[in-house]
């Protein structure tokens, strides 16, 4: 019998009928209410668009409802839902044309010209929240994340945006922590490079560069 924890850390009580293969409607409603915003946020960060994110949310909670028996009490419910959502996202990606999967090598992240060591949009002295009030910076950041090869994007989103530990990311993606950290480092370097590409701000805004 699958063990389930009671009153687990995610703040959702144990299901009422542990022998059933799917959740009861009250169980489902509780899980849905508590986690739908989290999964939508995650899905939107992964796929970058609202319609696809809504589809992923629907598939995730439908699969969670049907497969509640598979939930193991030794994992957090949120981790289980992230796992289902990440699989839903991968299935969707296979059907659609997105960024191709490719390996990122460290060598490609060494700046090659003066000026590409720092970010093109000045952020020094600002809090991240203040910096992100700049619409152009937000757009550049979204663009950079969207251009990441999918397996790197997944790690960056889970670790740096959703705030999960390397161990949790490893459990969701079935990777060891070393592989998670390696992918995360490359993903961060990729985004940094995109945000520091010389001429990026002029190209995207049409403004004259002033340095």
């Amino acid at each position, binding site marked *: 019998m699958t063990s389930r924890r009671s009153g687990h850390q995610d703040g959702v009580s144990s299901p009422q*009928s542990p022998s*059933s293969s*799917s959740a*009861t*409607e009250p169980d*489902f*409603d509780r899980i*849905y209410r508590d986690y*739908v*915003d989290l999964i*939508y*946020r995650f899905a*939107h*960060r992964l796929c970058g668009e*609202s319609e696809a*994110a*809504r589809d992923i*949310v*629907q598939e995730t*909670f*439908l699969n969670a*409802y*049907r497969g509640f028996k598979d939930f193991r009490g030794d994992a957090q419910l949120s981790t289980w839902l992230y796992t289902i959502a990440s699989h839903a996202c991968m299935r969707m990606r296979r059907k659609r044309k997105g960024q191709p999967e490719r390996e990122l090598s*460290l*060598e490609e*992240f*060494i*700046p090659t010209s*003066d*000026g590409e*060591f*720092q*970010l093109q949009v000045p*952020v*020094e*002295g*600002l*809090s*991240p*929240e203040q*910096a*992100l009030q700049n619409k152009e*910076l*937000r757009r550049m*950041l979204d663009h950079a*994340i969207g251009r990441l090869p999918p397996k790197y994007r997944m790690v*960056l989103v889970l670790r*740096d*945006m959703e*705030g999960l530990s390397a161990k949790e990311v490893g459990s969701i993606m079935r990777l060891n922590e070393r592989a998670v*950290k390696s992918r*995360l*480092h490359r993903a*961060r*370097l990729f*985004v*940094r490079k995109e*945000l*520091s590409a010389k001429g990026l701000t002029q190209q995207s805004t049409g403004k004259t560069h002033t340095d």
Partner: protein
Amino acid sequence: MSSRISAQPGTHDPIHHDHGKQHCLKVLQKLSAYLDEELTGDICAEIRSHLGACPNCEVFLDSLRQTIALCRHHQPHLLSAADRATIRRHILKSVPPA
């Protein structure tokens, strides 16, 4: 990590450094682990020593730190109440009652 995005170091000549690129690459490999405080004291000291001697790497590290801070504070997209209700309805319609 500091709540403020750190200031960059002073001006420097980014083209000329007095050591090989391989050393920079070796440091670059460890920068996330350095920022995530996963390295031992002696490796951290080695990296700090390199950063002190290589303004390019120091600026690079700062920009990486800023990038991570921006990702961590990325504004999420929110699901509307109407969409939340619609998706719930669709799911319950797809699942036969127990």
